[in-house]
C-alpha cells in the first residue's frame, strides 16, 4: 500500500465550488456538458418519464408564496464523493475511486445492475435505457475524447476527466503541475456568471480551497457523510 500521507501531498483532490449566489439557472452548463461528453438526448417521451440523460441539472426550489415568492437554483452534478455510497455496491468495479479522488465510471465494465443508481443519495447517475440515437450527421458532433455509451450502461458526470488528463499530461511533459484554474470542465468553462470554480482541494491556495473555507460553504446532504467534492456556497442576502 502506498503511503497515504505522502500521496495526499502529491495527488490532487479535484473539487468544484458552486456559488449559488451567482448561479442564474441559465442552463449553459447543461448544454456544454452535452456537447463535451457526448451525452445523448432522450427525447420528449423519455425525458418526461425521468429518463433524461443530463449529467448536470439545475434544481429549482420555490420558497414562500405569492407575492413574496422566491425561486432558487442549485446545479447538481455528480458530487464525486470521497466516500461514495455508489462505489462498493457495484459487483464488477465499474465505478471506483481513482487516486485523484474522483468517482470514476468505467463504461466498458458496467453490466447494468443499476445498483449504484439506487445507492446514490443525490440521484445524479443516469442510465442508457435504449441505444442512444444520433441521427446522421449529428454523429459528427461527438467528442472523440469521450466514449459514446451504449445501452444498458450507467453514466454520470466525470468532472470532464478527459480535460483533466489532457492538462495533466501537458503539465507533466513540461515538468510542472497544472496551475490553478488551468483545468476547466466544460460547465465551468462556459458558466456565464462564473458560478462554478474547479480546482484542487489539496492545494490550500487554490480558489476552490479558499471558497471551501468560506463561511458560505456547505455540502449537499452533508449529514450522510459521503464527503462530496462539490462545495456549495450559499446564496447571500443584501442588506439595505
Amino acid at each position: 500500500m502506498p503511503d497515504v500521507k505522502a500521496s495526499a501531498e502529491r495527488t490532487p483532490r479535484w473539487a468544484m465550488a458552486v456559488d449559488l449566489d451567482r448561479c442564474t439557472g441559465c442552463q449553459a452548463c447543461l448544454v456544454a456538458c452535452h456537447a463535451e461528453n457526448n451525452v445523448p438526448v432522450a427525447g420528449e417521451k423519455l425525458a418526461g418519464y425521468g429518463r433524461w440523460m443530463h449529467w448536470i441539472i439545475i434544481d429549482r426550489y420555490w420558497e414562500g408564496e405569492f407575492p413574496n415568492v422566491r425561486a432558487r437554483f442549485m446545479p447538481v452534478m455528480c458530487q464525486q464523493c470521497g466516500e461514495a455510497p455508489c462505489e462498493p455496491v457495484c459487483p464488477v468495479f465499474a465505478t471506483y475511486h481513482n487516486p485523484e479522488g474522483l468517482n470514476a465510471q468505467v463504461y466498458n465494465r458496467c453490466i447494468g445492475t443499476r445498483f449504484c443508481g439506487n445507492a446514490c443519495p443525490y440521484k445524479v447517475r443516469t442510465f442508457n435505457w435504449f441505444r442512444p440515437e444520433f441521427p446522421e450527421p449529428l454523429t459528427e458532433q461527438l467528442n472523440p475524447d469521450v466514449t459514446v455509451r451504449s445501452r444498458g450502461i450507467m453514466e454520470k458526470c466525470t468532472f470532464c476527466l478527459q480535460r483533466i488528463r489532457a492538462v495533466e499530461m501537458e503539465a507533466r511533459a513540461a515538468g510542472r503541475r497544472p496551475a490553478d484554474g488551468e483545468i476547466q470542465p466544460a460547465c465551468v468553462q462556459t458558466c456565464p456568471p462564473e458560478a462554478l470554480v474547479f480546482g484542487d482541494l489539496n492545494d490550500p491556495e487554490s480558489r476552490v480551497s479558499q471558497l471551501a473555507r468560506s463561511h458560505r460553504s456547505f455540502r449537499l446532504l452533508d449529514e450522510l457523510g459521503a464527503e462530496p467534492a462539490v462545495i456549495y456556497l450559499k446564496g447571500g442576502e443584501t442588506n439595505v
Partner: protein
Amino acid sequence: MTPRLTRRDFIKVGAGTAVATGLGSAARKILLEPFVRPPEDVLPGQATWYASTCRQCAAGCGIIVRVINGRAKKIEGNPLHPLNRGKLCARGQAGLQVLYNPDRLRNAVRQTGGRGSRTFEPLYWDAALDLLTEKIGALSDPGRLAFLGGLMPDHLYRLASLFCDGLGAPPPVIFDLHSALEGRATADRLSKAFFGSDELPVYDLAHTEVVLSFGANFLETWMSPVAQSRNYGRLRQGPFGGRGLLVQIEPRLSATAASADEWIPVRPGTEAHVALALGRIIVEERLGHVGSHRSYAVLYQDVEVGDMAQASDVSVETLRRLARVFADADHAVAIPGGYLAGHRNGLAGMLAVQALNVLAAQVGREGGVFLSHPAPASALAQTARVDTFDRVGDLIARMRAGEVDVLMVHGANPIFELPAAAGFAEAVSHVPFVVSFNSFVDETAIQADLLLPDHSYLESWGYQVPAPGADRPVVSAQQPVVRPLYDTRATADVLLALASRLGGPAAAALPWVDEVAFLESSLGELVSSSLSAFPADTAGDFWAVWRRSGGWWSEKEIPREPEVTSVVETPLRVVEPTSEGDSGSYPFLLYPYPSVSLSDGRGANLPWLQETPDPMTTVSWGTWVELHPETARSLGVVDDDVVRVVSPFGSLEAPVVVYPGIRPDVVAIPIGQGHVDYGRFAERRGGNPLALVAPVTDPDSGAWAWAATRVRLEATGRRKALARLESLEGAGRESLR
C-alpha cells in the same frame, strides 16, 4: 473534395501498393502516397481551435471552435473577446447542432409542386442563379423587389443594402421576433431620444450596487445575456467585495427575477409607473446625495405617487423604500427592459425608466449607464437595424396589394414569428416569386419557390459590431471553422453573383469578386487603427490576426459617456397601458415570453436545446401555460391539465404549469414551440402563443406591442404530462427538513 475513384485509378493504386509491400527492396525507400491527401489544416487526431462569432442571437459573442479531423466538435466562448470573455450561453453551446442538423437543406432547390407542397427539385447553383437573375431582370420596376432579413450578420446587411440600393429597390426590411421581444427597436428609439445616439446603452452591472430592472430579463435572452450574466456574477460576489442588490419589476417571476433579491409583481404595463413614482419620491424627498434635484423636478410634475401606487399595484411603502435604496446608493442603475417595449406605452415607459438614471446621476458614471461604441470604421457603420413592426406592416400591405413581385427572405421566419393576425402568410400568396436563403425549411421557406440555402454560421464569413457593445470598440470576426458540409452557398456570394449577372448599377454597387474580397475591403480601415489590441502592419498581417483572435478590439477599456439630450427638460408622460380584448370576456393578460433555450423559436430544431429544461418550470420539449395557483384553483385545473387559451385573435391548447411566481391576472406562455415546419425536432410540438397576439403597436415607436393582448381560459378536461425535470410531488421543496 474526394475525387471519384475510377476502375483505372483503382488498378494503379493496387499496383503501387504491390511495389511498396512486395517488391520494395530494403535499400530503396518508397514513400507511400495516400489516395486522398488530407487538407493542410487537418492533423489527424489533433484538435485545432478556430475563432469566430456566435450567430445564435444578435449579441455577437466571440467563440472558439474545436476542430478535429476537419469536424467541429465543441464551441466555447472566446476568452479574448471583450464581450463574453470566454463565456457562452446554452444557445451558443448548441451551435454545433445547427451545423450538423440532419434536417438542413443541402443544396439549392426549387419547390416544383407549388408552395407548401414540399416537393423539391435540386438545382445546380448556376441554374438557380440564372433563374433568380431572370426573375429580377424581368421586374418592371426595381421597387417591386423586397428583401426581408432576420438576424443578419452586419456584412450581409451591408451587402444586401448595397444590392437593393444599386438596383433601386427599397432597403431591406429587418425583423426578427427575438429582437421584438427584447424591444430592440424601441431601445434604439430610446437611445436616440435620450442620448441622441444610434448606439444602445450599456448598463454597468459589474460595478453597481443597486439594479432596478424593469422587465429586463437580462440573464436570459435580453440584449447580451452572456456579458450581462458575467457582470451579474460580479455584482453578486465581485472581486471588490460587497453584494449588489437586484430588484426585478415585472408581472411574472422570470429566471432573472429568480436571481433577484426582490421581485415586485407589478401590474403589467405599469412598470414605468413605478419608475415615475420613484422619481417623484426622490425629487420630492430630496433623496440621495447628489445635491439638488431641482433641475429634474420638471420631469415628474405630472406624477402623483398615490395614483402610481394604485395603478401599478405596488404599495407606497415599497415605492418609498425602493426610492431610498436607489437614490442612496453610490452606484445604481435602472434598466428599461424588453417587456416594457411589448406594451402600447412602451417608449414612454422606457423613457421614464431611463430618466431614473439621469435623476440619480448615474449616466456615464461607473456602475451606471454608458453607451456602446459605434463601429470603428465607416464601412462597418452600416449595421443591421431592426425595423419596427410598422415597417413590416408596410411590407405586408405592399405584398398584399400586389406591389411586390420578388421577395427575398434571409434569416427571417415571419410566418412563425409574426402574429398570425398580421396576415403575412396570406400576403405571401400575392407575391409571384419568393426566394428563401434559409438553411432550414421553416414555415416561411416552405412558401418559397426557390430555396438557396446559406451556409450555417460555422461555415460562413462575416463580421459583427456587437450592439449593445462591450466596454471598448469591438468588431467580432466570423470565419468558416469547417469546410461547408453541403452544396450550400454564402448568400453574400449569391448576391455578388446576382449583381454581376444583372450588370448595370447593381454590378457597380457590388464590385467585389467574392465575399472575402468584400470583407477585406470593408475591414481595410481597421488595419491602421492605433487602438488595436493586436498590432498588424500590413493588410495580410491584419487579416491573419483578425481571423486568429476572432475580431478586432481596442487594447484598453474606453468607456463612452453619453450626453443626455433635452428630453429631460420636458415632463414625463404618464401613459396608461391599453390592451386588446375587453377585460370582461378576456379576464387575463397574455404574457408571451422568449424561452431561455429556444429563444424566439429558432432553437427549436436543435435537440440539445429542446432537451434543455426551462430553468423555472423545468419543462423541456413542450409548450405550457403558466397560471397563478389561485387562477388554477378557480378554473379547477392542476398541473398537466390541458387548458385552452382564447384571445380575440386565436386560441391555443397546452398543459398547465401552476406557477407560484405570476400575478393572478396574468397568463404566461413561452414562445418557441408550435412549429409546423422546421425539421424533425421542432415540428408538431407544442403551440405558438403568437397565434393569440394582436398585431398592435406602440403608437409612439411603431414597435409591436406583443404583451398587450387579453385572453380567457377554458378547461378542456384533458391531461397531457409535460416532460418535467422536477418531480411534481416534490412540490419544488429544497428538502423536507
